């Protein structure tokens, strides 16, 4: 994202007078914007999140006044505009009928890659501390009835509520997903990175 000094200053000021806290809010809202664009079918959620914040900064530098009491509401409005622009571009580029803007590839993964993924997941799980590994396996027990009752018992045994357990498991899962992606990148000889990185 590219911003001049004034735009950047205005953007930070939007998130509060304390620069450290403003920085935290900036990062938090950027993460939320990435999710927003992902949920809305944006092709490049990270770039669209940056574009949104870029536009907000520029508008502020141009003297626009924000009437919303919560800056997130203002950012939300700008994000919707960015999204509309993206949809227009998608429709022009693909000229697909409305209602099927992106097309849906079949939900299949070739057997070899699925096997590599499984092997990577196994390896990532083995790298977890034993109690954590057991927690994952207990949480994701296959049979549905056992799963529902098991999760209730798990939360109880950990002394936390079921929602807290779900959040804890989400964090663990994110960690595992990240590990599996790295492992797949290695086994397939790819960096698996975006941005300016590229492989030899």
């Amino acid at each position, binding site marked *: 994202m590219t911003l001049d000094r004034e735009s950047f200053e205005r953007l930070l000021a939007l998130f509060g007078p304390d620069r450290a806290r403003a920085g935290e809010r900036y990062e938090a809202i950027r993460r939320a914007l990435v999710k927003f664009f992902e949920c809305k079918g944006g092709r490049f959620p990270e770039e669209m999140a940056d574009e949104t914040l870029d536009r907000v900064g520029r508008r502020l530098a141009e003297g626009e006044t924000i009437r919303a009491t919560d800056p997130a509401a203002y950012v939300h409005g700008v994000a919707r505009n960015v999204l509309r622009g993206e949809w227009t571009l998608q429709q022009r580029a693909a000229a697909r009928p409305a209602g099927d803007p992106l097309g849906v590839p079949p939900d299949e993964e070739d057997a070899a890659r699925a096997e590599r993924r499984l092997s990577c997941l196994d390896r990532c799980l083995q790298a977890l501390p034993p109690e954590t590994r057991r927690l994952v396996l207990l949480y994701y027990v296959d049979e549905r009835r056992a799963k529902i009752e098991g999760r209730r018992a798990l939360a109880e045994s950990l002394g936390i509520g079921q929602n807290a357990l779900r959040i804890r498991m989400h964090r663990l899962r994110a960690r595992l997903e990240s590990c599996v992606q790295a492992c797949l990148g290695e086994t397939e000889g790819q960096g698996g990175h975006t941005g*300016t990185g590229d492989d030899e």
Partner: protein
Amino acid sequence: MSQPPDDGRLTAYLLGRLSAEEEDAVEGEYLGAPEALERLAAAEDELIDAYVAGELSGEDARRFEERFLASPARRERVAFARALRALAAREPAPRPLSRRPSLLLPLAAVLPVALAAGWLLLSVRDLRTELSRQREQQAASARESANQRDHIALLQQKLEQGGPVAIVETWPLEPGYERDAAPPTHWTVPAEAVAVRLRLSLAGDAGAGPFAARVETAEGRVVAEVHRLPATEGPSVDVVVGAAALAPGTYVVLLQAGRPLETVDTYHLRVRAP
């Protein structure tokens, strides 16, 4: 599908079943509060699991496929859920986690006075748990603030020099285990970048931090050293390094933790000329 107790609305949002006004409300919540974003992400995990388990109705499955299979990142998550399910089914049932000793049962067998005492004990325990949780949150927040201060200070310093700037480039890096299996990725620092955020993916046993990171050239010259780094969602650790420090060449990033500092992981990267 099995509906989580409070996420019917979030699931409906993820499947595009809400009205425009309801969508706006959900988005307003997670754009305004990181906790709401985390709840949405957890609901997304469960929705993906329900799809993989064949628990979604025909209409919901169709909506899911439209929304999740069209995005490469989300397809990866679906494939991950499938692998997790396969592995959980394959593994022998693990023994249950050790249960916390319950104060309630023994107390139920004694006199009402003891019950009252038991209630007090439970209240104290709950308060202690809450206090401990609050302290952990405060500590995490302090670490995050320190990191952000470094980040903002760096950007500020660069902005003082004037002119347009790219705030940061983010380079995700994986730990160096089995690094010989594949060459490290080459990265290029864009000419307009003032800083690069090295996003160090944490291995399972890396601990909770706080971390320190040292960026060295292949010859061992230290080009950047940052302390008080918190782990963030992913989990990963972000290290912001001035772009000028990353001249073309090979670098090793040492992620350290503990007191005295010990290296918990290493990362490799190569920077080449734009």
